[in-house]
Structures are given as C-alpha cells and as structure tokens.
C-alpha cells in the first residue's frame, strides 16, 4: 500500500476550504432556526371546532382528544401528558337577567367542594377577553387521584382556571385544568385558545 503523506502543508486555507467551513456554520445556524420554527409550528398547531347549536367556534391544540359526550359543549385533553391530562373545557349555561358572574362562581364552588378533594379557591379577578369583553376568572386547586386504586399512583395537585362571561342570556364557562407542575408551561396554550374562541 502506498501512503500519500502530505509533507508540506500550505500556509493557509484555500478559498474553497474556507468557504466549505463557512457554509457548514451557516447551514448549522439555518438548520437550528428551521428546527425552532418547526417546534413553534407544531406546538401551536390547532384544529377547528364549531358547534352551531351552542354558537361556539374554537381552535383546540392538535393531537388533543376531543370529547363532546358529557354536559359540557366540548372538552379537549392532552393525552400525551403523564399524570393528570391537561384539559380545556367549554360549557354553556342559561342564566336569568339578574344572574351575575359571582353567582355562577359561587355555584361552581359549592358543587365542586364536596366532589373534589382539597378544593380551594385561590383568587377571583376581573378578566378581559380578546374582544374587550369583560369576564371573571377564578383560580382554584384540588387534589386529583386515580379512579382505579390498583394503579398505585400518587395523587396530583391540579390547578384550575375558570373564565366566565355572560352573553345573550347564557353564561359561557371556559375551564382550564393542569397539574401544578406544568400549569405555567401550559397556560399559554389556554390563552391562545381564548384568543381564538368565538361565541
């Protein structure tokens, strides 16, 4: 075998060598930017949902599981999460002229307190929806445990946020539930959901 030994090296890089290395670095930077864009596009991808009977049109996160089988208008859950599944729920409730958001929040609290373990209201504040419509937000926590005791899982502290607004004789209650560990991380998803919600 003949060995091709490079005995004398050129003093510097040739133009082609220099540009070869520049192109790799430029490509690397572009590729990371593309990666970021893909990430953002995937994480913010939504699927439209409309319910003409309730007069609601929404965009829920892609890959979340849609459920319309209960008393609410619809509910979507992130089934890819371990532990408590992050949930967004929209419910509509008929109200009288004299009903206020405060009445509805008190009713929700009275209904939930016996049903949910360690249920506790954290705060109630005015909330402005994207179209400048006034609403009321109530933050609360409770402890969720697995329905099946044989699964041997620890109970999880869940943080919730109800946003209530009254319009045309009906109250629209939008609920966000997430494990306290992922609440701050998932809250922007709920805020985007509210931004796109039409009713």
């Amino acid at each position: 075998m003949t060995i091709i030994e490079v005995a004398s090296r050129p003093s510097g890089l040739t133009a082609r060598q220099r540009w070869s290395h520049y192109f790799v670095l430029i490509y690397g930077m572009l590729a990371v930017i593309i990666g970021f864009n893909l990430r953002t596009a995937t994480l913010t991808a939504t699927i439209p949902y409309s319910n003409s009977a309730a007069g609601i049109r929404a965009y829920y996160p892609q890959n979340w599981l849609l459920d319309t089988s209960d008393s609410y208008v619809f509910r979507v859950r992130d089934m890819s999460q371990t532990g408590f599944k992050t949930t967004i729920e929209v419910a509509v409730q008929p109200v009288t002229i004299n009903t206020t958001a405060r009445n509805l929040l008190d009713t929700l609290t009275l209904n939930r307190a016996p049903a949910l373990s360690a249920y506790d209201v954290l705060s109630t504040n005015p909330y402005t929806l994207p179209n400048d419509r006034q609403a009321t937000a109530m933050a609360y926590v409770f402890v969720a445990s697995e329905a099946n005791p044989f699964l041997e899982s620890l109970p999880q502290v869940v943080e919730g946020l109800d946003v209530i607004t009254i319009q045309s004789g009906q109250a629209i209650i939008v609920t966000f539930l997430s494990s306290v560990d992922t609440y701050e991380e998932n809250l922007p998803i709920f805020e985007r959901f509210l931004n796109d919600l039409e009713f």
Partner: protein
Amino acid sequence: MTNYRLLTPPDEIEEIYPYRRVWWSVTIESALLFGVAAALYMAFQLVGLTLPRALIQPLNILLALLPALLWLIFSVWRERAAVEPRRRLITVALITALAANALALPFVENILQPERWLSLAGAANRIVGYTFTVGIIQEVLKYIVVRYLAWDDEYRVRLDSVAYTLASAVGYATVLNLSFVLNNLVTPDVAVIQIVNYVSLNYIGSLVAAYGLAEVRFDNPNPFLLTSMIALAALLNGAVIPLRSGLVNAGFSLEGSTPGVLFGLVLSATMLFAVGFVVSFLFSAAERRAREAAAREV
C-alpha cells in the same frame, strides 16, 4: 538438480504502515459492543437472569462507559504501537464530551424539547424534526470540535479524519449514555440496547462527516460537499431515531405485545455496517484517485 539454500536469507523489504489501522479498530470495538448487547439481551430475556436492585445502577454505568473503554483499548492504546501516533484523540473526545454535556444536551432537552412535540407527529414530520434538532446539533458540534482541534494540524492521511471524528463520536455518545443510565433505572439489557443505539448513531454521523472533512483537507472539492455531508449525517440521525422507535416500541394490541428490542439492535448494526461499508469504499476510491494523480505527476 541441487538445491541451494542461503544461510542468511536476503532482507525482505517490508513496507511499514506508520499509522494505526482505523477500520480494524472500529470493527473490533463495534463487534464487541454488539456482542455484549446480544449476550446481555439473551441472559436477561431468554435465560431469565435477574440482578439485585443495588447492582443494576453500577452495572448500567459500567455499560455506559463501555464504548469509551473499548475505544481506549483498541484505538488510543494501539496508537502507542504506531510509528506515527495520532496525538489528540483523547483531547477531541474529552472536549466533545464537555461541550455535549454543557451545551448540546441542555439545548436539545430544555429548549428544543423534541420529545414534547414530535412524539405524536407523523413519520415525515418526525424525520424532519429530529434532523433539524437532535441531528444537526449533534453533528455540527462534533464537526466544530474536530475542525478546530485536529483538522488543521493533525490530518496527515485521509483516515486521520475517521480516527478523529470517531473520537468525537465516542465523547458525545458517552455523555448521552451516562445521561440515560443516570436518569432511567432500567435493567442492563434495556440500557445496553439504548447505549448501542446512541453509539451507532454517533458513529454513523461521524463516518459521513469524516469523508467530507477528509475531502476538504486533501482534495479540492465543491465548497458545498462538506455541508452536504454534515446535512446527510444529521438526516441519517433524524431518520434512524423514529425508524428505530417504530420498530422497538410495542404496538397496541388486545392480545398483548412486547417491545421489539432485537429489531432495534439489528437496525443499529445494519445501519452502522452499511454506512461504514459505503464510507470505506469512498475513502478507498479517494485514496486511489490521489495515488493515480501522484503517479501522473511523477
């Protein structure tokens, strides 16, 4: 007819190859690693071997360090026997490991978080997603380390490129291995399969990048060749990750199903062999072209 025999035979002119033979080292290291993986898989899955819980983590750490140990024995240690040893192999591996631990892994796991948004995506999206996240970060980081530590001064023959990029691959893979075994308490047969996967992925990418680096150093290729090789290395990483997940992960069935661990091992071995074969062919062709060019000049 009388046969005469010389009392002192004539000196045979033996051509001494002054460098460590890289392909031999890679073959031995890979074969031993795959052999250990297969043996552990059979011991745990077929024979039913069980270990005390206290022994699992130390054994997993040993397995995580196994590729680096094999590389130290069959590559670095054997350099001492070569006439012209490669001096910066350990430096390249160490700097790559430090950079991977300090920059690449935190960036991928905490900022890009591909598992969060790619786990439910379609096959094409996963390939593209992993290529532009895990693949590109891994390959560009290894390229930068080799480029600035070895490419200028330490490249004397084409195969130096393979030696140094594989040193970089060992450094990166060792950090991935340690991160996996320290964050997941799994049995050694599961750990070793993941370790083999990390090592083969890094070797595949580095072999492809090695060809680009060698061509730029010793030939006068198109300026986009090196970029194409790095892009191809990232794409191979991006393609193998979801492909392997699809093969290994257990499918959903009411009759029950088991993970196809062996498929993952076979895929890693096949990809490493195929890429190694193609790259060695490309290196041989490049060396032959260089020899022919040198002969023409003479």
